[in-house]
């Protein structure tokens, strides 16, 4: 099987994020591999390992696909050191500030050119928090959508079934290759890169392409930010130590705020 995993480099969850000219400032923050994408990489590796492996001469390959700036190679190396075979990084100045629609258009073109059987994504990137890119890729390619999976079962002969878990309930869904899968964080426990994995990752190929090489033209974003204003930071309010009347103090606070 040819498996692709979409991974994104995002600002560290703890980092303070700022908007510059209506776009997230990605230059001046610590960046990491989107943690939800680690589950996608792990699941791809487990699927490959369960059906003939992805080592040299194995039956499968796991290719990372990422769109982002040059420095996204750092996040990609981490996923390579977990055990993915190789990577494609789409970098182009014209993509700065791209929205989910253009991101999905670029990723879809790379995916369709690669002839993959399965594409695996995280459910959400921790910066934009949109949860839309996997569904967009599926709609663009006309491939089956198997998203919010807490369990994935693959038959290498050409079909996949998943358990989809959302706030609405639990569904069992199945489809034939090719499919777009997204995984929730309950699905597995991502492995830590081993020393051997880290050394091997240094030699793995990250093929870097610009838009012309991918063969799509840059579209301007279809939504525009008018303004972005920092909100006053939440300040800590009153703090009391319970010495026998903490619960009563809490009730008094609720009453004072007219919450009861």
């Amino acid at each position, binding site marked *: 099987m040819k498996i692709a995993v979409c991974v994104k480099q995002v600002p560290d*969850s703890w980092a303070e*994020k700022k908007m510059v000219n*209506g776009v997230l400032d990605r230059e001046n923050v610590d960046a990491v591999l989107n943690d939800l994408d680690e589950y996608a990489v792990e699941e791809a590796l487990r699927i490959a390992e369960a059906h003939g492996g992805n080592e040299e001469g194995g039956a499968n390959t796991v290719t990372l696909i990422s769109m982002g700036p040059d420095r996204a190679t750092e996040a990609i190396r981490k996923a390579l050191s977990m055990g993915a075979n190789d990577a494609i990084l789409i970098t182009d100045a014209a993509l700065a500030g791209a*929205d*989910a*629609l253009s991101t999905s258009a670029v990723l879809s073109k790379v995916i369709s050119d690669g002839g993959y059987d399965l594409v695996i994504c995280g459910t*959400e990137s*921790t910066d934009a*928090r*949109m*949860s*839309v890119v996997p*569904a*967009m890729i599926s*709609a*663009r390619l*006309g*491939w089956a*959508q*198997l*998203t919010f999976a807490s369990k994935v079962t693959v038959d290498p002969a050409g079909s996949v*079934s998943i358990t989809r*878990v*959302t*706030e*609405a*309930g639990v*569904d*069992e869904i*199945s*489809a034939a290759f090719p*499919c777009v899968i997204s995984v929730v*964080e309950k699905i597995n426990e991502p492995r830590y890169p081993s020393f051997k994995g880290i050394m091997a990752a240094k030699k793995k190929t990250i093929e870097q392409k610009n838009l012309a090489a991918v063969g799509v033209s840059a579209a301007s974003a*279809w*939504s*525009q930010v*008018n*303004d*972005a204003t*920092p*909100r006053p*930071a*939440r300040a*800590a*309010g*009153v*703090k*009391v*130590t319970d010495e026998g009347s*903490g*619960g*009563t*103090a*809490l*009730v008094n*606070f*609720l*009453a004072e705020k007219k*919450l*009861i």
Partner: protein
Amino acid sequence: MSNVFILADFSGGKATKTTAELATAAARIGAVTAVVLAGAGKGVALAATVNQGPIASVLILESDDFVQYGVAASADALANLIKEKSPAAVLIASHAFGKEVAARVAVLTESGIITDAVDVAADVTATQLVFGGSTTVHSKVSHGTPIITVRPNSVEADFSASSPAIESATANIGDAAKKSKISSSQPLVKGGRPELTEANIVVSGGRGTNGDFAAVEKFADELGAAVGASRAATDAGWYPHSHQVGQTGKSVSPQLYVACGISGAIQHRAGMQTSKTIIVVNKDPEAPLFDIADFGVIGDLFSVLPQATQGIHAKKS
């Protein structure tokens, strides 16, 4: 006057509070048509529950494909309807299903999309709170039909009764939308408590409950609140995953959020820090959640909560 679509939102066979919220926001833009996607023969009964909020008409599309092919079929039918009727905007509830339908509709109708709006103005400008609520953003779709998902419990809804005209239209669903087949579907069983994302008050428990949610639940019930949990609590199996609040759980924005025995990891905060008022009960004075609490009690939840529960009870009687 222009026409605006909302995708009517249902739970347990009834229109949710969110449907009225979507209608309230949409009515600022134009006359509201609530689109009801239903299994064959199920439309009229569902439509009858769409009776709150400023809704001018209800349009029913019926097909068993919605049941069998879920998100993709729903998006396809909605996209085809949008192409036919050219509404001024489409408002959809911001949850997993709503966002994915919106994502596909945006692609299929070549339209811009904005997710997780907390408000929408008459000129279709959307307000979002990003980066964990630290920044307010106003944005606008500049291409196609604005597709906007709106977070439940954000818009101050007009719940006045309405009796919209009910019509039907054909659900047009192409083969590309029938590739992933749902073989079984278990809707979430609703307990007696309010729905997490709709509740005015949420009381959550974390690892500090040590698996015993009784004190948290009793306090929640006294307040008429929904019960939430941290990932530590859902991972341990102490509370169902559907109650998890946070980055990979639900985002809630109630009037009051009470966190009990929760330390305040960034992933938990991501789902609750836009709550109007935050109360924290924690044994550890250094717990980071105290930094964003309007009121904090340093203490054992097993003594603070029962006392507070009793205190509220006493005030009521």
